[in-house]
């Protein structure tokens, strides 16, 4: 349930960016979310609906872009996904891997006037 903390931070940062750019309202917040983050979209959206009231983003839509987990094998450099629940290299079998995509939790951009 850290979705609510995430949403509070999203609104805080977006509000700050809107202020710096003299926006009077935010229409869309575009957020990248990596698959390793264990965040639930429904809870995010519910939290967003509740928390955005009385903010510059009161009428805004939260768009989530889910980035699947991608690992890089440190032995053979293969890039692979973990959809099958396996975190080791499907080509050479090495377990020495690095997360290349999936840890994201970034506000890409905001749209507004």
């Amino acid at each position, binding site marked *: *349930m*850290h979705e609510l*903390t*995430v949403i509070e*931070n*999203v609104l*805080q*940062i*977006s509000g700050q*960016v809107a202020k710096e*750019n003299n*926006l009077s309202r935010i229409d869309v917040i575009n*957020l990248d979310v990596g698959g*390793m*983050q*264990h965040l639930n979209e429904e809870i995010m959206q519910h939290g967003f609906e509740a928390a955005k009231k009385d903010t510059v983003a009161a009428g805004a839509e939260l768009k989530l872009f889910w980035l699947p987990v991608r690992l890089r094998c440190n032995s053979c450099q293969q890039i692979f996904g*973990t959809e099958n*629940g*396996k*975190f*080791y290299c499907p080509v050479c079998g090495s*377990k*020495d891997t690095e*997360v290349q995509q999936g840890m994201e*939790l*970034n*506000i*890409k*951009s*905001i*749209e*507004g*006037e």
Partner: protein
Amino acid sequence: MEIKVLKNVLDKNMNQAEQNRQALMKHNVKMVNFISSPGAGKTTLLEKTIPTLQETMNVAVIEGDAFTSKDAERLQQFNIPIVQINTEGTCHLDSSSIESAFAELDLQELDIILTENVGNLICPTAFDLGEDFRIAVLSTTEGDDKPAKYPMLFRQARAVVLNKADLLPYIDFDNETFKKDLQDLNPNLQVFETSSTLGTGLWNWVEWLEVALEKEVKRV
């Protein structure tokens, strides 16, 4: 109009975590972040770990709980500094709550801070506290499928303590599956089987922890 932001949502937490790390390094204090489900046995494990650490190091505990100070009260017997953080329902500790806890501790007098996070396998993993490393505590009754279900925690942890190992003969827990899944996720992970209530398996764990902490000291 569209304005590029490209900012991590939790960057406030990350920045504060980095400041905490600097404060710890300045005073040569190591911090360990214990993460588990509620009831896995974090506090009991600490009760069995602190006496050995205390022989050679000055230990303090930061106790994170949603409500109550029951866990902190259990640890008062050791006469060590304990700071209770009540998150009031929030499911994780964050770096600013740790900064407030530091204000109540004399870092100069300490070697080790053991931080017991709020019981939860998901949320605490997203919040860097400024710790040197994380320990995942899992109890056998939670099931052997937890590493596969919660990969983030087990990828990030330095070691896993499989607690309540004395119950293995009575429950449906496939130790081989468990260890294989952990290996697949994180081949460098140390795994310890303990029963904190019976006191078994603790020696290996505490010995490893002491060495791991010393290594951190030398790294600085």
